[in-house]
């Protein structure tokens, strides 16, 4: 009899644990989807098997997505050149001129569109431009 009671007391409170686990799951679901918003899903990046592996991203930087048709997408919003310049100027005023600018160009976009974005970056006196690519061997 005494043995049985001991066993019952050592039991884990499952229902409260499940409450906590669900809370944690919901927290991670919400934060995970926030994290990926800067990347445009429609872009297929070019391959570059020899580039340096991606290190941790600088949160101050701006990621500029350029689609195949030349449309520019910054943090989930389609913008024109004027708005892009305004965003860059704003960001440069906030954090300085050495913030990294990541250009995610589609593999088939014409360079003329990339050049327009690079000109906008240069005119804002930003200079750290990087092109993002996939680290895959060409098949």
């Amino acid at each position, binding site marked *: 009899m005494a043995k049985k009671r001991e066993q019952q007391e050592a039991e884990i409170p499952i229902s409260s644990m499940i409450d906590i686990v*669900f809370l944690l799951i919901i927290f991670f679901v919400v934060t995970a989807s926030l994290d990926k918003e800067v990347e445009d899903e429609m872009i297929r990046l070019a391959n570059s098997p020899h*580039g340096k592996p991606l290190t941790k991203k600088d949160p101050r930087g701006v990621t500029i997505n350029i689609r195949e048709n030349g449309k520019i997408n910054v943090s989930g919003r389609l913008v024109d050149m004027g708005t892009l310049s305004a965003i860059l100027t704003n960001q440069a005023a906030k954090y300085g001129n050495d913030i990294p600018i990541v250009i995610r160009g589609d*593999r088939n976009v014409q*360079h*003329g569109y990339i050049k327009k974005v690079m000109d906008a970056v240069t005119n804002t006196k930003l200079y750290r431009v990087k092109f*993002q690519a*996939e680290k895959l061997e060409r098949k």
Partner: protein
Amino acid sequence: MAKKQRKRMKLDDADVPLSAMIDCVFLLLIYFIVTQKPIIDETLLSCDLPTPGGKPPDKPPQMLTVEVVRMFPNPNNDPTIKAKELNTYYLNKRTWSLRDPSAVNDLRRQLITIAENDPDQTIIINCGPNAQHQKLIQILDVCAEAGLTKLNVVNDESIKFLPSDSP
């Protein structure tokens, strides 16, 4: 005995609704399976930009220029675009056709030789406005493989930009 019975009743009440929980867990599992993306390793290729308003950098005498010229099929059959501008890389006026995969390897060997002689060699990549972005990435990748870090990407002003989706 009656006490024992009551205790067991209490325990039964506190039981977890297992079947409902499994429903929930399966729903979550399916959600995660559907929304997951394959993890793709990504990389960043850096290049230098000319500073606006500043004085142009002193050009070292042996600066090399890699030109990436027109890579798109002629969209409007514009006769002013010369045939030699199609699918071509130039390195110091030497030409490599992009259609030939061994040409890219040849270009790679050239750049590796350059990097062995002087890893600080500035390479100017003169990209035509109609070139596909992946051709530029390809050149940047070859330069990264060779270990060249001083890369300047400039736009070839002598070629007219013809957007491929314009009428």
